[in-house]
């Protein structure tokens, strides 16, 4: 059987990390866009849309991502829609990310004091104008730290795409652990890689948050 050197393991893991990064970026970007749409539906005036989005969020926040991935890939296949693994993986991750981001952002919008709504209303602005000029710009600012913070969850969430055949870093770790019988080395490296990917994100989220609390301005 093939012998792995440490550097071979590291190289293989780093290679797989590429997938983790790509998947994270795509899910985050796509999830952000969809999340924005959901956000508007959720805080909009249509009661019907609100309930719909609420149900959506409940569903995607209330079931394991693992199951969502599985059903997105194979479930669609059952209905004769053949989706490539990367499509299913990104679709499921995007849907999942969007559900969380929409909720996070809704929280930011509702955190804007009522006085801001009233002041802009009393200046004659419409709902849309209030949103566009007064509420969203302020909500956007306070939403940055939690959004960056959530990106860590997305990175970690990509680990589960192995169920549909993605060889990202966790899966590569499992395979390598089995091919080398050195699970501790391999998982140690995997943990290290995740930490290197995630820590800068969670750290900057924290710094941003602190900054925001100190200089409450512009």
């Amino acid at each position, binding site marked *: 059987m093939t012998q792995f050197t440490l550097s071979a393991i590291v190289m293989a893991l780093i290679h797989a990390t590429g997938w983790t990064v790509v998947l994270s970026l795509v899910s985050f970007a796509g999830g952000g866009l969809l999340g924005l749409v959901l956000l508007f539906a959720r805080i909009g005036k249509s009661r019907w849309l609100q309930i719909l989005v609420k149900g959506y969020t*409940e*569903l995607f*926040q*209330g*079931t*394991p*991502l*693992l*199951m*969502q991935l*599985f*059903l997105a890939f*194979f*479930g669609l*296949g*059952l*209905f*004769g829609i053949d989706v490539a693994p990367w499509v299913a993986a990104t679709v499921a991750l995007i849907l999942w990310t969007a559900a969380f981001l929409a909720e996070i952002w809704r929280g930011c919008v509702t955190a804007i004091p009522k006085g801001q709504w009233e002041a802009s209303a009393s200046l004659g602005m419409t709902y849309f104008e209030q949103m566009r000029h007064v509420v969203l710009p302020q909500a956007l600012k306070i939403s940055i730290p939690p959004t960056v913070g959530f990106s*860590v969850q997305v990175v*970690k969430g990509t*680990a*589960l795409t192995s169920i549909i055949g993605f060889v990202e870093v*966790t899966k590569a*770790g499992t395979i390598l652990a089995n091919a080398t019988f050195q*699970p*501790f080395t391999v*998982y140690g490296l*995997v*943990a290290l890689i*995740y*930490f290197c990917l*995630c*820590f800068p994100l*969670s*750290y900057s989220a924290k710094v941003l948050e602190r900054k925001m609390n100190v200089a409450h301005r512009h």
Partner: protein
Amino acid sequence: MSYHFNFDWVATYWPVFLSGIWMTIQLILVGGICGIALGIFCAWARTQGPRWLGWIVAIYVELIRNTPFLIQLFFIFFGLPAIGVHMNEVAAAMLAMVINLGAYSAEIIRAGIEATPKGQFEAGASLAMSPIQTFRHVVLVPALQKIWPALASQVVIVMLGSSVVSQIAVQDLTYAANFTQSRTFRAFEAYFASTLIYLGLAIVLRFALLRFGDMIFATRRRATR
């Protein structure tokens, strides 16, 4: 495709599912209670505790929050025996959940403590209470109340995340689904059923937590002028 859903297996395998659900519930009960307790301690250490302890807690929190749960689980179950610490898979899963929730809830609770008006600490101090007494009697309850919904969501997230403990042979709900599908090859039916059960558990769990919060923090919610 002409796939025919077939739930005949339910007749044979429902006990597996039942015990899987029960295991998942046990996991989140232990993980939830001990995890929040650990979170309270860590939040205290970071806000009021001695500096060195604060640092240790900070490192612990960052390590846990920035690595996947699955990897943490593998380390506890496969790694700790290497240094002579053996535990069965259920204990390992519970420990992993406690450690995981502990780290997340520490951050959440800390936010609640930091949002406590300075006046509350000062009022406690000026009544000659020690910092720990002030924390315990004055700060903690309102802080928990403030962040309770966030904490409830985190508990639900950890419950859903527990679906990977089947990897170390814990017989939870996901295990039940996997087990059933490995015997019958009825994968969709098994996963579909378990997804629905998870959804139900998540909804019930969040509802229960929020109601519990209403109960123990009932004081302020009553008749506000």
